């Protein structure tokens, strides 16, 4: 679970150093709903380019679930640790999420796919 501390999310654990090439293959489980290609916004989930470091529920032009918008307003930022916890069990981490996938049970899969996301493109300096 994520914890709020002074309006920001306290995070720990989950380090880089995995295999982003393998992470791209893991991303096939996400591919039906997400893209990391700049400007590709037709899939039903938000574009994940630059998602690492972004405040939850804030990508412009995407209609997020109320649960994600609320979490972002309360300070949830998609750090590596937050992504790791979310991807392990999305509905438990964030009840009300509309993301359909049941989660990635293997820590190595989560680490590598987060590596892949991190390398997919620049994290915006300031989220709108």
């Amino acid at each position, binding site marked *: 679970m994520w914890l709020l501390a002074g309006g920001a999310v306290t995070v720990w654990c989950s380090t880089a150093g995995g295999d982003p090439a393998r992470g791209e*293959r893991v991303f*096939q*489980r996400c*591919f*039906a*709903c997400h893209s990391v290609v700049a400007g590709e916004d*037709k*899939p*039903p989930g938000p574009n994940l380019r630059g998602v690492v470091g972004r405040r939850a529920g804030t990508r412009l032009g995407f*209609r997020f*679930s109320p*649960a994600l918008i609320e979490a972002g307003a309360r300070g949830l930022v998609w750090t590596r640790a937050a992504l790791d916890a979310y991807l392990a*069990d999305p*509905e438990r981490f964030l*009840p*009300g999420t*509309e993301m*359909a996938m*049941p*989660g990635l049970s293997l820590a190595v899969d989560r680490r590598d796919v987060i590596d892949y996301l991190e390398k997919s493109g620049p994290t915006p300096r300031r989220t709108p």
Partner: protein
Amino acid sequence: MRRSLLVLLITLLVLPPVASAEVAVQAYPLPPGGGPHDVAVGADGIVWYTAQRAGQLGRLDPASGKVDLIPLGPAAAPHGVVIGPDGAPWVTEGGTNSIVRVDPRTREVKRWPLPEARGYVNLNTATFDKRGRIWFTGQNGIYGRLDPASGAMQVWDAPRGRGPYGIATTPDGDVYYASLAGSHIVRVDLDTGAAIVIEPPTKGQGARRVWSDSRGRIWVSEWNSGNVSRYDPKTKEWKTWKLPGDSPRAYAVYVDDRDKVWLSEWSANAMVRFDPETEKFEAFPSDRRGANVRQILGRPGEVWAPESGADRLVVYRMK
């Protein structure tokens, strides 16, 4: 607490009055953590569901409420389940990229893997045609067909790539699927496997699932637009209705034996029944937060909905 009351109040104001003395609602609790994704009920009344997060197929006996769980193997993450003409549950097993049959008596699990060259396709939903073949969709951009008698499997690239989602068979045996990312529906040529794209009138609507009524008209739940739409293959005409509420999200659709159209609506956390004759909606809000019904199926007199976020199966029985 105040926010919850406000949400409840708004929900009650924007939704039509809860129906209906003619419908009895019963919820069956399931083993926690399974995340029931899809459900299917056989002619014998036994209910099968995919416990996607647990990698199992569940079997519920509604008479006793007893649930049995059948493991589908390491890395399993089953998405869809339908009852085949043989009375067995058939599963689109996304975790292992295979079509799976579970023998209802022996519980034996038989698996038909997709060709390795296809890679991971994110299997979604399946339907049987009238020739005993099972057709299936893969969200990463494929649809396919398996003939269980011969074991022959064919997989085709979907037009416009990723998106194939719900799939259904009409009373005449035609097969249609919806493309969520592609925002269209497809009729499949049963002989050649060719996909014929049909465009709903609402641009970018996010066609998620399809079902047929008794006249072969195709009903579509539109995730992005919050509409339910109907395509008549005879006249090629569409008709569209917006679900109740400010920003509805129509996930699943199913047409019951009385040609009433059932939908799961995520914004209001409700099941919704639409009467095509009166063009009126009735809402059945869940009493659990974030119930997240992802699919609906039934048999005459019963409509079943898996509450993936609440680990329950809910049945709506017509009196």
